[in-house]
């Protein structure tokens, strides 16, 4: 019934015949075992952090010497110009985004000086009219204002080893050039994940990393995006000495995301929450312990994260 050239066809027919396997019993067994089979956490972020931390240690060491930038970096903790419109009434709008070399941790009113946040649910964002965001504080040593849109580990968001989480909402104006941002503000903002990612990909003076899709936070699906401040970036040569990625309100120049040091790494979750563009931005440095960065993501990449529409 066969010739040499017919063998694949014969094989195909043979493999397809008398196929009467039924999997009900196997399926039942599997479903019975699900409760005792925990899902492993997504680890692609952790793997990338590991790689990046290994490769970029020298960047972090270089960043440590940039004292002025480190001071700016402090504002990652409390400055509204990097953290979005979360309630922080103690900081006047006119001060937004201005480097304040005299600032110190003890002088910053938006950071609790008397203790860290308790483990458990934490209202990360509750600005009126915005999507309220609740995350889970995964362990000790986390600081942040209720609803203020930021989390910082050990009150240290500075180079060479600090880390912070910032959340942004709403349309974002992505500068065409992160260094020469004052003349490259777009006419229209990015209103969707795709528009934001495309704008960031097109942005000059930044390095982009891999983009991943389908990352679920709180039941909303978004993109994982990696951005790096080039190690050879010279902030002093940039507009107003700042390297910026985007701004929420270009007219008032408020709620801008500006960066703290060469070699700074930004891991973004860019998602759509019922039509609202939401960005989680974990910013850290090559010298930041990996477990600190992982813990930041655990705070948001956790089943208990919720989004509540206004």
């Amino acid at each position, binding site marked *: 019934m066969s010739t040499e050239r017919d063998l694949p066809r014969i094989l195909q027919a043979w493999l*397809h015949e008398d196929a009467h396997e039924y999997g009900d019993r196997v399926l039942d067994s599997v479903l019975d075992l699900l409760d005792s089979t925990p899902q492993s956490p997504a680890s692609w972020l952790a793997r990338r952090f590991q790689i990046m931390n290994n490769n970029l240690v020298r960047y972090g060491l270089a960043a440590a010497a940039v004292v002025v930038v480190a001071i700016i970096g402090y504002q990652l903790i409390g400055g509204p110009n990097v953290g979005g419109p979360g309630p922080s009434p103690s900081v006047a709008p006119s001060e937004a985004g201005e480097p304040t070399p005299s600032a110190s941790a003890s002088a910053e009113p938006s950071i609790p000086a008397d203790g860290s946040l308790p483990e458990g649910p934490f209202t990360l964002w509750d600005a009126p009219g915005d999507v309220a965001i609740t995350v889970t504080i995964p362990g000790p040593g986390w600081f942040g204002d209720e609803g203020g849109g930021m989390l910082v580990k050990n009150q240290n968001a500075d180079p060479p080893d600090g880390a912070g989480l910032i959340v942004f909402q709403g349309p974002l104006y992505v500068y065409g050039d992160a260094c020469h941002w004052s003349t490259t503000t777009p006419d229209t903002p990015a209103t969707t994940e795709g528009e934001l990612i495309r704008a960031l990909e097109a942005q000059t003076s930044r390095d982009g990393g891999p983009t991943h899709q389908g990352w679920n936070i709180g039941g909303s699906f978004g993109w994982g995006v990696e951005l790096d401040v080039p190690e050879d970036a010279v902030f002093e040569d940039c507009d107003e000495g700042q390297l910026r990625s985007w701004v929420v309100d270009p007219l008032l120049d408020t709620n801008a995301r500006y960066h703290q040091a060469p070699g700074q790494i930004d891991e973004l979750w860019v998602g759509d929450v019922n039509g609202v563009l939401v960005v989680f931005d974990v910013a850290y440095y090559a010298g930041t312990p990996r477990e600190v960065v992982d813990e930041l993501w655990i705070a948001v990449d956790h089943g208990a994260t919720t989004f509540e529409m206004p």
Partner: protein
Amino acid sequence: MPITVEGMDTDLVIRAQTGDKGAFTALAAARVDRFIAVSHRILRDLALAEDATQQALLSIWRDLPQLRDPARFDAWSYRLLVRACYAEAGRTRRAGPNIHLLPADEPVAADRLSAVVDRDQLERGFRRLSLDHRTVIVLRYFLDLPIEEVAETLGIPIGTAASRLHHAIRGLRAALDADARPAKQAGAR
């Protein structure tokens, strides 16, 4: 607004990634028969195939959060299934010898395959193939996967997959020839 929706299954995958057992059940129910069929053909043993399928589905559940692209769920799940088949084959000898009994590159005369090949001959010949060769044949000729997807499923380069398939077919020809040879010799006496 899910970004990666390319069909209902992608949505199910994304939900299952966050621990939605209902979504996983729907995914598994739609695939379990096929998984058993594939593993049965690779392992040539229904009990082993069921064990491999069970292990594969549990692996899928466990590792699903690590799947970066939900749209690639099927290729990824078949990779886990193949891995489970290899594990089952390694755990027991019931699946038959995992060795080449005949050199795959040995030239085979066309007229030897002109003879009738029945199901039993195919079964015997197929069982003589290595696990690698049975797997590549099942993926290509049972699942009808293009060679690129065979390669992706096996996690090997396309050229390697094509070469493996080529040698698998040659090995099967050789096995069929060897199966037919004693009968011919007996008939010549």
